[in-house]
């Protein structure tokens, strides 16, 4: 191929190549953040030096090791109850992970199924489901959370439940849109000619074709949910003490920000790392696997 154009290779080709190289490069930063996050999630018990819940009241409010008074025994310091901040951060990753996965599994399933039904069958079914979705989208999530938290008590479960019942309309709409386009394609018609039932067409012909969209929204949503969870815990509507949720740690540390800055800073950094990891990776997945973007 190299000799095909010789030295006078048309410019367009070179341009397209260089574009591709920068666009589809690996998101090293995103991967690194994600790797750190998942490492913490998986090996929390092994790598955290102390228990996240039991503190040593003799060693309260120790600063990080590089400040005077800090020691490498508690690299990121301790809080006012003498609990190791690093250990709490490591265990906190599990809560973030569980809540985001729980939420997405919950509302992703509802959203995808409703979207598929709505898009595939169309007509009156579609109208009903979509109007219901619009109605649901108009509900303010935070008020719903207040209500649920006051009924069931604020906890991780309530959080999952609330995000779960509030998050599906987004999925339903996107999946419906994709489904509308796909169901008119020739291969769906041929599948029908082959004798596939509606269910079979939906699950073995249409669903695999929208999986990549679903993966993309999911990765990006994980970041959003981690932030939301932290927000809710910060407001006192999420997980309760002594849980080591990052948002809760922020909330607890806020009052002492003037003389124990590390209590708010490190949980904040942890949130940034996790969200950045998911968003960068999500963007990269979209760029790489979305066939519509490839030609650009």
């Amino acid at each position, binding site marked *: 191929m190299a000799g095909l154009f010789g030295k006078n290779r048309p410019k367009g080709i070179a341009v397209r190549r260089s574009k591709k190289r920068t666009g589809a490069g690996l998101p090293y930063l995103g991967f690194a953040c994600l790797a750190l996050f998942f490492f913490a999630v998986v090996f929390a018990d092994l790598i955290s030096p102390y228990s996240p819940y039991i503190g040593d009241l003799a060693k309260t409010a120790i600063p990080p090791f590089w400040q005077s008074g800090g020691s490498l025994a508690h690299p990121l310091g301790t809080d006012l109850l003498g609990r190791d901040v690093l250990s709490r951060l490591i265990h906190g990753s599990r809560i973030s992970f569980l809540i985001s996965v729980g939420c997405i599994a919950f509302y992703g399933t509802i959203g995808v199924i409703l979207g598929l039904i709505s898009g595939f069958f169309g007509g009156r079914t579609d109208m009903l489901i979509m109007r219901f979705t619009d109605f649901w989208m108009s509900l303010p999530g935070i008020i719903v959370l207040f209500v649920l938290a006051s009924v069931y008590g604020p906890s991780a479960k309530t959080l999952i439940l609330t995000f779960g019942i509030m998050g599906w309309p987004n999925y339903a709409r996107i999946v419906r849109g994709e489904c509308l386009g796909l169901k008119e394609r020739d291969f769906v*018609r041929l599948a*029908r*000619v082959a004798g596939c039932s509606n269910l079979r067409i939906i699950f073995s*012909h249409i669903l695999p*074709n929208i999986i990549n969209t679903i993966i993309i929204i999911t990765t990006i949503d994980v970041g959003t949910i981690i932030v939301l969870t932290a927000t809710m815990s910060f407001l006192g509507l999420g997980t309760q003490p002594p849980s080591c949720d990052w948002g809760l740690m922020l909330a607890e540390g806020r009052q002492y920000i003037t003389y124990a800055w590390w209590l708010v800073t490190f949980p904040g950094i942890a949130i940034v790392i996790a969200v950045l990891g998911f968003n960068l990776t999500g963007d990269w997945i979209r760029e790489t696997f979305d066939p519509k973007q490839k030609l650009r």
Partner: protein
Amino acid sequence: MTDEKTPSTKEVLLEVKGLRASLFTKKGEVRAVDGVDFSIAAGEVVGLVGESGSGKSMTSLSIMRLLPQPAGKIVGGTILFKGEDLLCKSESEMHRIRGNRISMVLQDPMVSLNQLLTIGYQIGEPIKYHKRRNGSLREMCVEILRKVKVPSPETRVDNYPFEFSGGMCQRAIIGMGIANAPDLLIADEPTTALDVTIQAQILNLMREIQKEFNTSIVLISHDLACIAQVCSKVMVMYAGKIVEKAPVRLFYQKPAHPYSIGLLNSVPVLGKRDKRLYSIEGQPPNLLNPPPGCRFAPRCDRAEKICQTDYPPTTTLADGHEVSCWLYAGGKP
């Protein structure tokens, strides 16, 4: 089921009478198929020609009962398949017929296959749903691929459509179509998206399949050369109606309807460059609001007064040669 089929050519397999199908759009009713009659004998290959929008595909989709939803609706007529009216069948009965007794090949092979499933899976689908399995499904798929002449079918069966060329995809789709040895195969412009050498191969393949399974084939095309090559009968459709039906020889020797004559004149002849290629003036009529008389009258250079007001009756010119045109209607009113 296969041994029931006797190679008698007289037996009528499909009889369509007065079929009318419409698309109900926001602007009104589009009469895409407006009173179509024809019949197909077992083992016969029939060509259906006409320009884009003349209702060819709508006719075939009506037979499959797969008109685009929710706009498309069959308004009238009967479709007798082996003596049973397909329009009276329930959806579940149609499931049993589609892909089993009647199947279909569509125009563009690259979009007719699901890009995410293997060729083998997709060929296996019609077999799986109609439970005509003897031996392993995979083996049957390999056998079908061999029949449609895909090279090294044992390894190709696990490939994905993007690993196939256009011609091979079309072979695989034909394979899907014939997986259950159907009685009727509707091929909706099977060669349009392929280049000429592949077209010939695909047409030969269809002819072989027709001989082997005694399958009747409806070949929809706007390529008159490809019709001439494989069909025994030609039907010309114009604006939702069949204007001429003729045995293939007769059609090319003595086309009767002015539209058919126009069509045949617009085929480029290799090596002849002395004058501009003939084309029929004007556009096909808007089917939202078709002309009251003969649909072709506004474009016809032999149109008379009556052509504008009344639709011509069908006249039989010779055995199997029918035309709907006032030029041939003996007792002109």
